[in-house]
């Protein structure tokens, strides 16, 4: 998009939409949509408030642990599936099913197995995030140039060296892409989990604000959540860009 | 420069059908691809554009096709100024540009389909040109079922089918393996002797340029300018093998290599 010869970056159009939001909010057409500036004010209030710190902390720790498990378990599993055909045949179908299945339906099971607590949220995050990490890691390992593996063998690399110095690094672009997508899914998992359990972390706040019709606060939580999701995924994207130069060169 | 052009046109012995005057092209990033290119292309002949990689050969061809806009200068085809693609010119693409979801027949007839010609007539014409390029029996195949050489035959048939006077070929054989290329070159020469087209042919292979064309235009390094026009008429020699063995062919190839080597040396000194 160019205006008077100036290139306007695409993300700037979001500002346009925020202005539209503000106008709708000021006009008061819909009770549900308070002016954006009010939401912004509420966000800052929220950022300073005790209850938000507490629930955000709970949410964040559940998210971090769930993601940690998903990454720690997902990458080795993906590598295994990429290298061993038998494992791939055994698990490939399931991973593919779970990548697109409505995992939300499993949350009630998790709830009765793990109780209405933090564990349930952690398991939900893990469950949402892990499959795409496995799948992308597997794809990355499969696309490693076979002559690169032969090269490592020819220079007498040990098995351990082959994996840590060649395979994982060569598959890094895909692995990072998997982690980024897993992160996005993990945020969705934490939100869905907390909404369904409804007495933990941000889920509790959502419940509280929407029951009491505190629309600006409700939107504030939502916006902060969105901002977190996007910040986290762009962080990984930055990492991805650093390895991009050899992702494309493989052909 | 204009002396050379006149000379070359004379040696080719016919009137120019495509005339390029003062073409310059600068890309958005600031790369000057072409600068002040003047060229005449005689009717009914094959002219090769040859030069070091990145000299703007393909850019020039796409400007003649009307696919790119020059920053200065103009192209005239049969006396009319080029403002965009036109029916008197047809393009053969380096990457074939075949529709992967269409059969050979539909691909060959695609230019006609765009002109709104009836299906029966399209089919008829397509069949004719499919035979011309030697693909009879493959009418209902899809591009992914064909080898690279066969795909380019489809691309060539498609360009022939719209009955344009000028064929613009952008490194058509660069994605084809060596043996297939030789056969294809021989077939192309034969086809052109029947169809009487003017061909502008971009290549980076000296042998290919000398073998196929009546004149070779040597472009200089970026920014591309016309550096030399070499008449290479090897006509009169009957068989393709005779051409490849003739002294004239071998000498011309050697001469052009000598000139191109100069550019490479200058590059290294820089």
């Amino acid at each position, binding site marked *: *998009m160019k205006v008077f010869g100036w290139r306007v970056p*695409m*993300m700037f*159009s979001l500002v*346009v*939409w925020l202005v539209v939001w503000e106008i709708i909010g000021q006009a008061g057409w819909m009770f*549900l949509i308070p002016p954006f500036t009010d939401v912004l004010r509420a966000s800052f209030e929220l950022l300073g408030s005790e209850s938000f710190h507490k629930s955000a902390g709970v949410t964040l720790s559940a998210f971090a642990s769930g993601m940690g498990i998903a990454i720690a378990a997902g990458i080795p599993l993906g590598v295994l599936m990429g290298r061993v055909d038998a494992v791939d*045949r*055994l*698990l490939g*179908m*399931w991973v*593919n*099913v779970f990548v*697109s*299945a*409505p*995992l*939300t*339906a*499993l949350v*009630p*099971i998790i709830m*009765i*197995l793990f109780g209405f607590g933090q564990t349930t949220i952690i398991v939900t995050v893990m469950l949402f995030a892990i499959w795409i990490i496995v799948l992308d890691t597997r794809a990355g390992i499969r696309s490693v140039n076979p002559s690169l593996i032969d090269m490592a063998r020819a220079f007498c690399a040990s098995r351990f060296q082959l994996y840590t110095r060649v395979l994982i690094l060569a598959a890094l672009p895909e692995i990072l892409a998997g982690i980024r997508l897993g992160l*996005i899914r993990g*945020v*969705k998992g*934490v*939100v*869905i989990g907390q*909404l*369904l359990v409804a007495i933990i972390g941000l889920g509790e706040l959502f419940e509280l604000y*929407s029951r009491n019709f505190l629309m600006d606060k*409700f939107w504030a*939580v*939502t916006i902060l*959540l*969105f901002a977190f*999701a*996007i910040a986290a*995924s762009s962080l990984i994207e930055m990492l991805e860009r650093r390895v991009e130069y050899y992702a494309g060169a493989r052909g | 420069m204009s002396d050379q052009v006149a000379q070359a046109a004379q040696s080719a012995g016919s009137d120019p059908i495509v005339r390029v005057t003062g073409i310059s092209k600068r890309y958005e990033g600031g790369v000057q691809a072409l600068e002040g290119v003047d060229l005449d292309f005689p009717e009914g002949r094959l002219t090769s554009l040859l030069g070091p990689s990145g000299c703007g050969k393909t850019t020039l061809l796409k400007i003649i*096709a009307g*696919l790119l806009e020059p920053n200065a200068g103009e192209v005239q085809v049969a006396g009319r100024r080029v403002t*965009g*693609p*036109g*029916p008197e010119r*047809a*393009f053969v*693409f380096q*990457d074939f*540009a075949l*529709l*992967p*979801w269409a059969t050979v027949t539909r691909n060959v007839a695609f230019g006609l389909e*765009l*002109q709104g010609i009836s299906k029966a007539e399209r089919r008829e014409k397509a069949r004719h040109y499919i035979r011309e390029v030697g693909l009879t029996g493959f009418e209902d195949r899809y591009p*992914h*079922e064909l080898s690279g050489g066969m795909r380019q035959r489809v691309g060539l048939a498609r360009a022939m089918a719209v009955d344009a006077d000028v064929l613009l070929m952008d490194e058509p054989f660069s994605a084809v393996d060596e043996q297939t290329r030789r056969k294809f070159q021989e077939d192309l020469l034969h086809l052109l002797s029947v169809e009487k087209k003017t061909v502008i042919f971009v290549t980076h292979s000296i042998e290919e340029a000398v073998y196929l064309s009546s004149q070779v235009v040597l472009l200089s390094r970026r920014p591309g300018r016309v550096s030399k026009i070499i008449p290479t008429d090897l006509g009169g020699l009957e068989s393709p093998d005779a051409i490849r063995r003739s002294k004239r062919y071998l000498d011309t190839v050697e001469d052009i290599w000598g000139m191109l080597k100069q550019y490479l040396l200058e590059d290294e000194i820089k």
Partner: protein
Amino acid sequence: MSIALVCGAWEIAGRVPISLAFPSFFDTAAAFWRMTLDGSLPIAFLITLHPLVIGIGISIVFGVGLGVTMGLSRGFEWLAAPVFIVMQAAPMAALIPLITFVYGIGLTAKVLAVCLLAVPVVVLNSYAAVRNANPSLVQMCRSFQGTRLQQIMKVIIPDASPVIFAGLRLGVAAGFIGIVLAELLITPTGIGDLITYHRAVANYAEMYASIVSIVVFSAVIVSLLEKVEVVLLRPEKRIKGTPE
């Protein structure tokens, strides 16, 4: 083979038992039959599918239309693409309580929940498909004097259709997530009702049977769409053993 192995593992785990709330595979299968025969499961499926089908239909028409327009027009791309990029990355589920507010707990709310999750992925896929249509083919069409309309109808859309269709597949998968979420969060109807009810009365086998059946059902639909995609839109994948 791998299905049998997993079911076997489930059976053993259920027999041990890991937890009181973890029925064995055969108990679950038996519950599945009981519920199928007494009609509660088929009826629940019909109820669940109703808003799902409507929502997916709307998402496809709206999403593909919008995505293709975004791919074709630079101005529109500038205006709309970031919104959908944000929607795709953000946890839209957070907005479901809001939908309940506006549209209550009826059909509309559920349809909207499906759309909310399905539209972004459909839009972004259609948009990317059109945007990345093979430029060489577009140039070829131009060189044969194709009009802009011909360019769009005969080259860009056919070239983009496999990716657009893949987007629809992902949209359907997202729609399933949306409907399950809506049924668990907004009001328990259909499958959501079965899950909630059987959990409340501790009929764990029945609850598992409902959950597994909806997960399997969505997986079957999605993989069916994948097959359709290969047969209809990808001639190069259909025939085995061709080079490339």
